[in-house]
C-alpha cells in the first residue's frame, strides 16, 4: 500500500516523510526528494563526462540506484549528500569508460560582451583546458569549484581522506595550468 503524500497540505513534507513515502513506492515523493538536486547533479555530471548525453545517462543511473537503494540511507536529512555521491561516482564511471572518446563541446558561457576580448579568450581556453583533464581531476575540481564543497564533504563524496583532497586539488590545478598553457600555444 502506498503512503500518499498529501499535496494539499500546507505543511511541506519533511525529508523523513518523503523518504518513507518513497520507500513505500511513491515515485512522486521520490521526485520531490531529488528535485532540489536535479539541476546541480546534471550540471556536474555534464562537466565530469564532458557530454550532455553521458551526463544525462549518469544522472539517470544515479536516480535508479538511489530509488532502489533508498533503504540504505540512515539519515533522511543526509539524502542530498548521499545522492550527490551517487551522481559523482556514476559520472566518473561513465567518463572513465568513455575514455578518450568524448565530445569536446565548446559551449558559450554567460560572458558579458562588455568583458575585454582577452578575458573572453581566457575563459574559452580555460574551458578547453578543463576538458583535457582526467575524469578524476574534473570530478574533484567540479566538487570544489562548482559546488564549493568543503574539504570534508569532498572527501566523503569521493571516498578519500581530507588530506588527500587538498593535495589532489593542488595537483589538479597544476595540471589545469599546464593544459591551459598548452591551449594557449595552439
Amino acid at each position, binding site marked *: 500500500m502506498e503512503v500518499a503524500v498529501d499535496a494539499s497540505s500546507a505543511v511541506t513534507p519533511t525529508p523523513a516523510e518523503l523518504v518513507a513515502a518513497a520507500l513505500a513506492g511513491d515515485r512522486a515523493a521520490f521526485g520531490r526528494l531529488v528535485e532540489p538536486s536535479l539541476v546541480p547533479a546534471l550540471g556536474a555530471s555534464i562537466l565530469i563526462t564532458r557530454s550532455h548525453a553521458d551526463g544525462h545517462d549518469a544522472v539517470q543511473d544515479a536516480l535508479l540506484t538511489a530509488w532502489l537503494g533508498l533503504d540504505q540511507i540512515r539519515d533522511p536529512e543526509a539524502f542530498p549528500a548521499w545522492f550527490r555521491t551517487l551522481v559523482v561516482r556514476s559520472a566518473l564511471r561513465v567518463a572513465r569508460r568513455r575514455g578518450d572518446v568524448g565530445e569536446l563541446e565548446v559551449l558559450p558561457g*554567460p560572458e558579458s560582451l562588455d568583458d575585454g576580448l582577452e578575458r573572453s579568450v581566457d575563459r574559452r581556453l580555460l574551458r578547453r583546458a578543463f576538458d*583535457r583533464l582526467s575524469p578524476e581531476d574534473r570530478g574533484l575540481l567540479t566538487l570544489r569549484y562548482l559546488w564549493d564543497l568543503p574539504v570534508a564533504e569532498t572527501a566523503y563524496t569521493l571516498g578519500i581522506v581530507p588530506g588527500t583532497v587538498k593535495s589532489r586539488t593542488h595537483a589538479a*590545478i597544476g595540471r589545469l595550468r599546464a593544459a591551459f598553457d598548452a591551449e594557449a600555444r595552439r
Partner: protein
Amino acid sequence: MNDNADFEAALRETLPGRAAVEEADTQRLRASIAALPGRRRAGRGGALLAVAAGIVVVLGLGALLVSQLPIAHSGAAPQAPDPAAFASDPRLAVCGLTSKDAEAIFEMDHVRDYPLHLPAAYPLTGLQADPEAPALVIVRAGPASPDREGDSPGAGNHDICMVVGADASGWAPVTILDVDTSGPIAHLPEPTGTPFADALAPWAERCGGADARILDVYTFARGTDSATRIVLDPSAPELATDEPAAVIVYVDVQPFAPLGTPPADSATIAPREPLAPDHHDICVLVGADPATATRTIHEDVVVATVAGRASPTTESSPPATPGVLPAQLEPAVCRELRYPDARCLAIAERALADARLAWTDVAQVSITHNPQGNGVNLGGRGPGDTVTLTLTDGSQRRQDVGCPGLVAGRFDPACSDNPEVRLSSPFGDGSGYHDVPCGATPGGDPGSACATPMPDIKPSAAKRAAPLRIDSQDIPIASTGHLELDMGRATVPNGILSDARFTLADIHTRAIQTEDGIRLEVRSLDPSRPPFENIYEHGWYPGTEDVEVFLVMDVTSVTPGAMLQVRDLVVR
C-alpha cells in the same frame, strides 16, 4: 593568470556556464523518475507452485540486478497487446484459462529474460523452469489462481501462469503467485540504436542487445584464439575450443538474472555494487551461429587486452601476433602499468626516437608513470610517462613521453590504449571551412575587416550538382609511403562545398598506420581555382564546379592483407 588564486577564481566563474542545464533536460529526468520500476516490498517474495516434470532448475539468484537495467529514454512503459489477440492460442488451455481471464498476455523469447519484462518481480525465488525455453506469460486479471493458498494478490500484484516450452509436446505450466507486474512487462524498451556493426549485432543481441551496456564484442575463428587478444581472470574454460566463439564484455554487470544461490531473506537483497575498474561481467558464446551458440555468463572478471581492443563497431580483426615486445622491454613492465603491449611499445619507441637511439643501442627499457601524477594511474593522462633507457654500455638515459591533452592524445598510440586514426577533411576536423576570417568571436571585432558574406547557391546550379556518395568501399593497401586514393568525382554548385566527410569501419584499426592520419581532399578540376580549404578563400562561381576527391595518407606500416574500409564518404 599568474597564480593559482587567479585560476581558482576563473574556475568559479567559468564552470557554472559550462555546466548550464536546459529545462528540457530536467524535464526528461523528471519523466524518468515517473517511469522508475516498482520497488519490491519487504516480505512479498512471491510464492510459487511449480507444476512440471523434467524441467531443469537453473535460475540462480545471487543479487539484485534491477538496479542495472537501463531506463528507457522514451519514458513511458510500452503497452501490452490486447489479450484477445491470443484468444486462439492453445497454450492458454494449458493454464486452464481463456483470454478473458487475462489482464495481459505476452511472450518471452527466453524465461531468463523475465527480469527485463517484469523488473519489479525480480527475484522470483524458487522459479523452476528451463531458462533458455520460450514462454507465454498470462497475467491473470481477477480471481486468484485455484493453486493459490492464502489471500488474493496484494494491490498492484497479480498471479501469473507461465507456459514454458517451444512446442506442444513440451508445454508445461508454471504458476507464480502475487507478482508485482509494474514496469516494462510486455515489450522490452526499444533500443536507442545498436552501436554494433551488422556482423557483430547478432552476437550482441544474444547477450542482451544494444541496451545491455555492452562495452566490447570480440569474435574469434576459434575459441583458443581469444588468448591472443584478451586475458580473462578467472578464465572462461569454454573458450578452450576450436569452435568459433565470441566474448561480449559488459560495461559493468550483466543484464540478466544473476548467478549464485538466493539469500535466505530475499527482502534484504541489496543492489549489486558496481564492479571495480577493469572488472566486468562477460558473456561467452561458443558456436558458429549466434542464435544457437552455447551461452555462458561469468561475473566479475578482470578483462585485459593483449594488444589493442576492437570497438563494438568493428569486425573481428586478426589476432595480434604474440611476442610483439622486443626483448629489451619486459611484458611485466606493461602489466604493472596496465598498458596494452602496443601502447607500451609505442611509448618506448617514442623515447628512443627522442633520444635518437635504436633498439640495438639499448639493453633494457623501463617505464614509470611521471611522479607528478601522485602515484595514481591516470592511464597516462596529464604529465605522461618516464622511460629509462639502459644502454649497452651500461649508461642510462631518461626520456619523458608526454601526452599533451586528450585532443592529440587520442590519436597517439603512446597515449591511448585504443588510439583512433585521425581523419581530416575540409569539414571534419574543425579546420574552419566556414570560419569567418575576422576577429576571434562570431561577429568579430568591429574594427577589423570581415569577409564578404557568400551568395546563396542558385537553384539552377543546385539542379545540376552531383554529389559523390560512397556508403562502403574496401581498398587493399599493400605498401608504405605516400598514397593518394582517387575516390571519384562530384559536381559542386557555385563552387560552394556543403559537406565533405568520411569515416572508417574501424577508426581504431592498427592494420594500417599512418604518419598523421588520413585526409580527404577535394580538388577542383579547374586548375585556376583556389583549393577547397575555406569557403571565403575558394569563393563563389556561377554555374557548377567539377571536383575530384582523394584520400591522402603517408603510410608508415601495413599488415599483410590490410584493407582500408572507407564508410559514409560524402562530398557535395
